[in-house]
């Protein structure tokens, strides 16, 4: 369990705050609250993940922290500088790898990185070798003189990474760094991210909606939905917080028959939720409880069509806190197993 080790390691060291956010809020047009009173702390040298469905407020938060958007209220300190009072100092100490490719198509890779260096006011004698070094890091040095318009999606993302590092940022913000990349390129990007942390002791703040990415890379994760932080912790802590296994049972009958109360009486069962024709039963010991669940349902007159025991995973954590499965977010609710499941669940949870 590498995440367990990391969690403990991080705990043992005295942790230095590098990013402190207090009650950050952004509302658009005075009504829609994209980010709603978010507070958290990021420590030096960690990879902090922001996990949430589309439209949860991840990008808005990043845009505020990178001074692109002005917060409606709240405050934040990055690397000791106040976000509102001293944005120029904040900008000098951060790097940004945006979600979409922002490089200038008509320029070459090298020219794009140098252009970024000029934005920071880095003199050419420093920026020229540094640009080459970074291009080598992301393995673009052979294509450095080619126009960006000839680059593939993965190459563009790697170039963004090189550009984001040109000012030697203390914190690097990555907005969905592997969105839309193929498996190999994703693995490469992960490798770069790990190296930045290990070799350069950089703090990384990333948003993602890939659970495996968060699980693999992040030291700590914040789950965000509807502009609010639902849970913060290491992947291990989050999985622990579920407090057991989950048994998912599909029955043929619809709403009319509800056996939740009977199920709650079973030994080891912690919680039961019913959504349409599906029960989600939280239990301390999945394997032991499952036969009893079958019995209770059969005796109650339900026909079980499917049963599965799910061990704690980040996927489950995510479902637990956002009420939506990340796979459904991805499939855009069209190829998901239960298309209406997500909505119904989240409504139940908020009640």
């Amino acid at each position: 369990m590498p995440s367990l080790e990391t969690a403990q390691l991080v705990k043992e060291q005295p942790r230095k705050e590098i990013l402190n956010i207090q009650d950050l809020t952004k509302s658009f047009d005075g009504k829609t609250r994209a980010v709603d009173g978010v507070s958290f702390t990021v420590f030096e040298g960690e990879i902090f993940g922001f996990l949430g469905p589309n439209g949860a407020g991840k990008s808005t938060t990043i845009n505020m922290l990178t001074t692109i958007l002005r917060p409606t209220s709240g405050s934040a300190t990055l690397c000791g500088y106040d976000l509102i009072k001293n944005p120029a100092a904040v900008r000098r100490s951060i790097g940004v790898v945006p979600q979409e490719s922002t490089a200038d198509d008509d320029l070459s890779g090298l020219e794009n990185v140098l252009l970024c260096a000029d934005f920071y006011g880095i003199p050419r004698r420093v920026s020229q070798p540094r640009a080459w070094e970074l291009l080598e890091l992301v393995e673009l040095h052979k294509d450095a003189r080619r126009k960006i318009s000839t680059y593939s999606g993965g190459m563009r993302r790697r170039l963004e990474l090189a550009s984001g590092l040109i000012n030697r940022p203390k914190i690097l913000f990555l907005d969905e760094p592997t969105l839309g990349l193929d498996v190999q390129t994703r693995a490469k990007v992960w490798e770069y991210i790990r190296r930045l942390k290990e070799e350069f002791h950089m703090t990384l703040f990333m948003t993602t909606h890939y659970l495996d990415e968060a699980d693999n890379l992040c030291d700590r994760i914040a789950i965000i939905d509807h502009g609010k932080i639902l849970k913060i912790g290491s992947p291990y802590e989050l999985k622990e917080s579920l407090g057991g296994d989950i048994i998912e049972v599909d029955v043929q009958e619809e709403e009319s028959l509800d056996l939740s109360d009977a199920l709650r009486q079973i030994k080891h069962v912690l919680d039961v939720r019913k959504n349409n024709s599906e029960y989600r039963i939280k239990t301390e010991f999945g394997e032991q409880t499952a036969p009893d669940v079958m019995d209770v349902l059969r005796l109650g007159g339900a026909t079980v069509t499917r049963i599965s025991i799910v061990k704690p995973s980040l996927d489950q954590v995510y479902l637990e806190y956002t009420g939506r499965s990340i796979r459904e977010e991805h499939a855009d609710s069209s190829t998901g197993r239960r298309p209406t499941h997500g909505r119904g669940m989240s409504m139940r949870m908020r009640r």
Partner: protein
Amino acid sequence: MNMTESVVTGKSEEAESEKRLQSMAAKQSLSAFEQETALNQSPLHGLWALTNRELKKWYKTPVILILSLIQPVIWLGLFGKAMNFGAIFTGSSFNIPGLSIPKSVIDQIAAQVMQNTFGTSDYFSFFAAGMLSFISLFMAMQSGMSVVWDRRLGFLNKELSTPLARGAIPLGKVFSSILRGLSQAAIVLIIAILLGFDVSHITVTGLLGTFAGLFLMVMGFSSLFVMLAVRSTSQDTQMMIVNLLSLPLLFASNSMFPVKFMPSWLQPIVLVNPVSYATDISRQFLLGSPGMAPLWFDFLYLGSFALIMVVLGTIVSRRLLSR
């Protein structure tokens, strides 16, 4: 077989990248990445970088340069040459009963009339001087489009997350469109000379003065268009604005016809239009025409226009860029 091959290449790639990692780690202590450096923090740092970025896009694609010259060449070659007002006086003698005017006298009258009306001996030269303003104006209008593109492609957001001076963003657009506008105007002038532009009055001072006037005009207009575009996300809207304004600005100026041709309701508009003053400067300097206004007033007017627009444009853009 294929699988083994791919596994093997995968491994060798891995080994290679491992080696690279080690070599990088070894020289890490000396790497440029680790090197501290003093940053240029002047309020306008990055302005040249931004200007140069626009210029690179332009001179690296000569096709666009050539295409953007086609229109002015057509205007010059077809319109300018066809509107041969001098031909009204057919160049032969007049024979009305009781009045016989010899050809030489007619020619003298023609020259006099042309001089009085257009300030030069032929309409083509008069019109070509106006085209210099037109092509510069057209370049100035493009600056708004590129702001919209930058916003759509996320480039603007990238700029905003860096310590780049906020004022440098609109000013970079303005300066690049000035440089592009002036070089396009220079090319148009050369083409006009090849097509028969009256060169008898051209002096070095005259050329410098002409381009100084165009400089001020482009500066003012591109600031205006950057300002209009800075919050827009639709290039269609921006295109509409450009199309809507370009012809009125051209026709409601003295670029194509002298002010005195125009109805009295149009004349005040022409006299407000900065394009008229840039054209007036060109004609006075290049053709030695008696101007619409004294030169000092032309420069004062254009200078004020440029200054007001640049200041206003920079302030408005700065405010709108930090939402």
